[in-house]
């Protein structure tokens, strides 16, 4: 065990290019998926927070349930859609990083939307009456509420990034774990563990944990600074 740790540390210290490449791809795919998830999920969640329509309660339950989407099932559905005989087969995206971004975006969008819905709904309880009194149409009220909760939304963004970068099932199915092309940290860890190359698997695991820690720490520092400044 100690020997494995020592070898993993040596790999990291040597800045093994294969480790760096895999980490960079993981980061790129997860950040892209998180960006898409936020672009779709934040407005959708915010509108669900202030909209009143028949079946809204059911929509919220469904959205919350989608947070628990099984990654492998999402991977399978996207695989079918992107496979040569599938409806989107002509795009030629299967076994590319783009397919992995799509799969992760599908996974994280409900998470962002559900957390945004809850955060904005809480703010709406506090500010909604005032904003309605100002005669603001729905989209301007949403914008004002999002402005108010922007620092709290960092939690939703971090949760999405966390789910994306830690995800293995969907990216394995649609990416194929092709070395140098679609191999991410999680798929590599899985493969190297099966192959018995535990030092490399552990080195990748340490990089993965460090990345998540750095991103969360940076977000916490920025949030604290912003809260000090904006109250």
């Amino acid at each position, binding site marked *: 065990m100690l020997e494995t740790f020592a070898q993993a540390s040596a790999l990291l210290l040597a800045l093994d290019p294969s480790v760096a490449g895999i980490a960079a791809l993981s980061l790129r795919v997860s950040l892209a998926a998180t960006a898409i998830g936020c672009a779709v999920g934040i407005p959708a969640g915010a509108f669900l927070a202030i909209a009143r329509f028949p079946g809204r309660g059911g929509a919220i339950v469904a959205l919350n349930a989608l947070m628990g989407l099984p990654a492998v099932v999402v991977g399978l559905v996207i695989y079918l859609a992107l496979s040569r005989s599938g409806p989107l087969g002509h795009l030629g995206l299967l076994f590319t990083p783009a397919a992995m971004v799509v799969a992760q975006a599908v996974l994280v969008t409900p998470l962002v939307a559900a957390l945004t819905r809850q955060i904005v709904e809480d703010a709406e309880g*506090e*500010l909604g*009456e*005032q*904003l*309605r*009194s*100002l*005669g*603001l*149409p729905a989209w*301007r009220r949403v914008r*004002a*509420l999002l*402005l*108010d*909760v*922007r*620092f709290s939304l960092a939690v939703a963004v971090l949760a999405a990034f966390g789910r994306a970068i830690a995800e293995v099932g969907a990216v394995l199915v649609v990416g194929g774990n092709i070395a140098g092309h679609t191999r991410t940290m999680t798929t590599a860890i899985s493969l190297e563990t099966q192959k018995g190359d535990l030092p490399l698997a552990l080195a990748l695991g340490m990089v993965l944990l460090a990345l998540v820690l750095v991103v969360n720490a940076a977000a916490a520092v920025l949030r604290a600074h912003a809260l000090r*400044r*904006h*109250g």
Partner: protein
Amino acid sequence: MALPLRISGLVVEAGGRRVLDGVDLELATRGVTAIIGPNGAGKSTLLRALDGLVAPTAGRIGFGDDGAATAPRRAFVFQKTALVRASVARNVALAVEAEGLPAAEARARVDHALARVGLSGRARDAARRLSGGEQQRVAFARAWARAPELLLLDEPTASLDPAAMEEIERLVAALRDAGTKVLLVSHNLGQVARLAEDVVVLAAGRVAEHGPVDVVFRRPASEAARAYLKGELPWQSFDASP
């Protein structure tokens, strides 16, 4: 406000309870009208109904002699200041966003409103970092920026210290003097006496009494008004004769 405000048979139900139970009221076009009464009497609900924030179950709110005129421009200042986590200027700008003004004009309206409440120098400060009194002045700046014909105030000084309260009362008087009709919900009868010309006493969702402040305070005609004022003004002796 160019037109009188007429409320007839106004009923508002919430949670299976009649909060307003047939309010009939006619208010003058100018000055400050205070609305007083015990907790749960329906004061805040009446203001919310006038602002369109709650839908009446029955009854009518009308403006003008025939009650069919366009609703006046309104502003509402709540007891709990609802400020967005942004700068003071951005909060005031929300008040004019709905009008779709050109940016320069909107900015001028915001600057003018902030000057009126004495917060020009704090425009870029975080609104939620201000003191309670200053936050309420931001709320008044927001109201001022809307150039309201009807200003609805729901206990605007309830949680303020005497100095901040005096400042807010000065702003209410300034808006009144600028021609804005003010409806003021308050439990502070000293404040009512200082600011209002007439007072409406609400009890159990109905108008128990409506008249000039000095008349209602000295010689309340209704039992509900007498009971409320006795509790609120224990040092004042009333003429019990009708």
